[in-house]
């Protein structure tokens, strides 16, 4: 007995050492054959799809398409030309490049690179994000007009024009802001790329998609026949940025090529109802807004911003459920506390991986902490946008022309044909 006590530590040590070698040897259960006939291993072909040079080709095409669109909208004033640019963009960025890389999705790459050190953003993604925004600063939303494949597919399938009630429109247009905020938050915390996941048209571009995506995309396309560009108007997160940038654009599409005659012919011509009426016509109906009211709305902006920040801060733990690790931790905790067996593939893989539960739970807390850090900023952004939106209702510039709302106009050039003023070249 004494002897056993004496040797036990060494025995355990020996077992531990041998155990290691068993683990190591485990993948080699069968000895490697020694061939006599001069057999050589077949070689694998490791194939690539496209060289990195092609990514810059995409950037060049992007710049070219933006310039051509701007020329069509501002100089040539040709709707037909714009349709052809849309067809080209749909063919190239949509069906040839299969919807990747796109400016809408690049928001997430940017956010991931900004807030994570282990990811460096591909240069092409950065260019795809910033070039259309610069174009918006110069020429308005020319990217939406003819370059974005998602815009193009809807532009080419929008035939009728159904007016949406103003209140419904106002509620629906808040969705993209929330979408943008959440997309940035989820990408920054490395949990999800929701923009790419819920891209409705990429399935059409690849002619291959899960059926839910096909149904969602087809519904949007069918809706788009009557309510034009539903994705752009009520979902697109990049559209929010385009909207803000386009408000400060240097040049922008004008309805009339020369001087507006206030003839009201274009009034109902816009499929997106973004033509702003001239005050010469509607001066009588214009409601008076007092300075006091305007000031009270201005004071509401910071209140809203803080309120939303607080709300989002408290929502952070529930938002963090999109992260796979948080989901897994919840499942494992349920198994521990309630005795419900965790059967998901993730939990099976977790038990196989040999990670401890403590590690998983600290990981979960870290992710929730990151959400707590990021979510208030999203709330701040949402509150500010809503506050500024309210405030903008109280101020109004005096207009003597009919002109498009620079933020919401897609520069689709459909209004040209309603203007009776023509310039002969």
């Amino acid at each position, binding site marked *: 007995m004494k002897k056993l006590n004496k040797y036990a530590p060494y025995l355990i040590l020996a077992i531990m050492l041998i155990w290691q070698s068993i683990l190591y040897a485990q993948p080699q259960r069968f000895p490697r054959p020694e061939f006599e006939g001069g057999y050589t291993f*077949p070689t694998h072909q490791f194939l690539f799809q496209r060289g990195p040079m092609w990514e810059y080709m995409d950037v060049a095409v992007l710049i070219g398409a933006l310039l051509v669109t701007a020329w069509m909208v501002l100089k040539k004033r040709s709707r037909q030309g714009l349709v052809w640019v849309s067809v080209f963009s749909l063919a190239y960025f949509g069906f040839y490049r299969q919807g990747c890389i796109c400016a809408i999705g690049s928001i997430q790459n940017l956010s991931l690179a900004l807030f994570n050190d282990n990811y*460096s953003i591909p240069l092409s993604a950065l260019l795809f994000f910033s070039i259309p925004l610069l174009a918006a600063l110069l020429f308005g939303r020319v990217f939406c007009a003819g370059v974005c494949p998602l815009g193009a597919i809807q532009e080419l399938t929008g035939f009728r024009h159904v007016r949406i009630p103003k209140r419904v429109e106002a509620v629906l247009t808040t969705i993209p802001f929330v979408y943008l905020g959440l997309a940035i938050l989820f990408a920054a915390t490395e949990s999800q790329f929701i923009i790419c996941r819920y891209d409705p048209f990429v399935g059409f571009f690849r002619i291959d998609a899960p059926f839910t995506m096909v149904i969602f995309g087809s519904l949007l396309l069918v809706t788009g026949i009557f309510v034009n560009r539903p994705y752009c108007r009520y979902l697109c997160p990049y559209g929010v940025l385009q909207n803000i940038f386009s408000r400060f654009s240097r040049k922008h599409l004008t309805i009339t090529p020369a001087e507006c005659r206030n003839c009201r012919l274009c009034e109902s011509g816009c499929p997106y109802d973004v033509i702003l009426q001239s005050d010469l016509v509607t001066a009588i109906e214009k409601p008076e807004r007092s300075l006091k009211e305007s000031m009270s709305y201005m004071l509401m902006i910071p209140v809203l911003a803080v309120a939303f920040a607080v709300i989002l801060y408290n929502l952070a733990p529930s938002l963090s459920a999109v992260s796979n690790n948080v989901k897994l931790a919840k499942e494992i905790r349920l198994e521990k506390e309630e005795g419900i067996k965790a059967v998901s593939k993730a939990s099976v*893989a977790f038990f196989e991986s040999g990670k401890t539960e403590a590690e998983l739970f600290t990981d979960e807390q870290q992710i929730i902490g990151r959400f707590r850090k990021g979510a208030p900023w999203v709330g701040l952004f949402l509150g500010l946008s809503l506050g500024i939106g309210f405030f903008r209702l109280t101020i109004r510039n005096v207009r003597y022309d009919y002109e498009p709302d620079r933020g919401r106009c897609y520069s689709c050039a459909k209004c040209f044909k309603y203007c009776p003023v023509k310039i002969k070249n």
Partner: protein
Amino acid sequence: MSENGNKAESRRAFVKTAGRLLIAAPVLALPVILARKTDVKGYVWQIDPYKCTSCELCKSSCVMTPSAVKCMNAFPMCGYCDFCPGYLRQGAKTYNTAAENQLCPVGAIKRKFIEEPYFEYTIDEKLCDGCSKCVKGCYDFGNGSLYIQIMHNLCVNCNQCAIARVCPSDAISRVPATDPYIVKELKKL
């Protein structure tokens, strides 16, 4: 009246210019901020065969049909077994290579006699749909030489890989595009 109008107009023009500069600044600054973090070559997605648990999600989750994930055989690790646990189904009633005894549901594994008693197993990538049944068989009972990889001639390099999103063992990650495959090799003891 006209003077007031002019004033309002110049004020508006000033606000516009200021706003434009204010908004252009971050867009122009972004490349500068991110310059340190920019990568010209970019990334592709790849499966780490040492983390993979062969759960079969690669077959169903890829945006491509059939999946861009294909099986590979690491020949230096392969035992060239006659009774290959990746090739033949467990619990088969008869000992032959008839279709009902094969593990691969699409018959993508090709068996070739080399010399007694060794057989070479290669994968017909056109048929393989990445279900990784054979990977599990080889890992559980064999040398673990069969493993799956994302084939970059098929992969469309989604911004976020749809398989990576559901991968239970977190085996899929971004790898530099210059070195896009994680080849399984014989571990040195």
